[in-house]
């Protein structure tokens, strides 16, 4: 396999194995020592490092923005988009005024392969795998849905108690190291101002809550910002998104990531559901990776720019 010698020759328009993504991360760090570093926030169940790229121009514990992709491993367009976002941040810093302004005052943390065991498994054994890969005691079924395992309405309606279900919540909140590692990191950092967790597919931009119909206290602001973000997203290729709170827009989901982050006080908590625009579902052709990443970036920039301009 022709290994890329640097991130400029990395092929963003195709899907990559976990080792190719990990070596991309190391190359990006090596090429940008004054902007990018790698923070290993923990290990997956099978012992893979949970790598988070930190984009920082200095300071100490600056207000920060979190972006994660691939928490559901089969949603390949998200990890591929996350890789493209990493390069975009490095390329735009010093060139794009908005990105430069944000990074001169804030840090950005990007976890591209948030569920590495699951991702490896989709490449080697089962392309349809969504959950983690930890065995469940007392069951022949493996894995927990890492987007039902958070301590936010945990165990309520909108998650399954059956280990064989795709939405199995796990034996207790934060039982999965892939989740617990983020929880501990966010708590120890203590200065996150935005948290964006990226899924696919169904073209939605969602904000809390999923486990309760009680509106988020910042609902109006979150709703308006989401509307602006999906409008800019659609401006590139016309990809139409729906938006709103999780429970009003899709269904009740308990133990969800951004419900927990919002309850931690991270106001700008959003979940994206990226393309498919029509007929491929999770098997989105690789030629749609870059258009998907480009349109999503416009929405991400709205959220990051709003976070930067509305400190709290």
């Amino acid at each position, binding site marked *: 396999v022709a290994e890329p010698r640097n991130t400029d020759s990395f092929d963003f328009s195709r899907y990559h194995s976990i080792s190719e993504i990990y070596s991309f991360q190391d190359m990006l760090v090596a090429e940008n020592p004054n902007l990018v570093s790698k923070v290993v926030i923990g290990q997956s169940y099978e012992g893979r490092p949970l790598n988070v790229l930190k984009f920082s121009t200095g300071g100490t514990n600056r207000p920060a923005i979190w972006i994660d992709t691939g928490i559901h491993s089969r949603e390949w367009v998200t990890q591929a988009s996350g890789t493209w976002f990493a390069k975009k941040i490095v390329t735009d810093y010093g060139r794009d005024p908005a990105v430069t302004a944000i990074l001169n005052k804030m840090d950005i943390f990007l976890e591209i392969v948030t569920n590495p065991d699951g991702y490896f498994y989709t490449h080697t054994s089962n392309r349809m795998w969504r959950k983690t890969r930890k065995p469940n005691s007392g069951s022949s079924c493996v894995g927990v849905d890492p987007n039902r395992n958070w301590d936010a309405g945990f165990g309520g309606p909108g998650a399954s108690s059956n280990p064989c279900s*795709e939405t199995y919540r796990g034996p207790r909140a934060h039982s999965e190291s892939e989740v617990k590692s983020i929880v501990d990191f966010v708590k120890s950092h203590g200065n996150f101002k935005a948290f964006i967790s990226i899924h696919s597919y169904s073209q939605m931009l969602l904000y809390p809550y999923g486990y309760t119909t009680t509106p988020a206290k910042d609902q109006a602001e979150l709703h308006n910002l989401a509307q602006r973000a999906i409008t800019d997203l659609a401006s590139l290729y016309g990809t139409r998104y729906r938006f709103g709170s999780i429970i009003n*827009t899709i269904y009740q989901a308990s133990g969800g990531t951004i419900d927990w982050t919002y309850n931690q006080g991270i106001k700008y908590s959003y979940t994206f559901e990226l393309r498919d625009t029509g007929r491929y*579902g999770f098997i989105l052709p690789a030629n749609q990776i870059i258009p998907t990443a480009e349109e999503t970036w416009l929405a991400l920039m709205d959220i990051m720019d709003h976070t930067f301009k509305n400190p709290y």
Partner: protein
Amino acid sequence: KETFEGHQVLRIVAKDDVQLSLIKDLEDMIEFELDFWRGVTDVATPVDIRVPMHSLQSVKIYLETQDVEYSIMIEDLQVLLDEEQEEMESAAR
């Protein structure tokens, strides 16, 4: 390696809430081993379900007898996965 020959992904569109709950009932039919790619949300939003070959006929009969409209989004999932794999390998080469 798990393969998916003959698995189809059905795109189901409920006409009303009665049909929506009929589709939701499919979630509890464990024997069909259905994989909800897009879950049941509201009448306006299609539901996408991956159906293993062994359940296809039963699921289609269930939908057709209840007059629930569906289309076949993916005819044979394994064909699409083989294309994806081939594309990855040729791009890597």
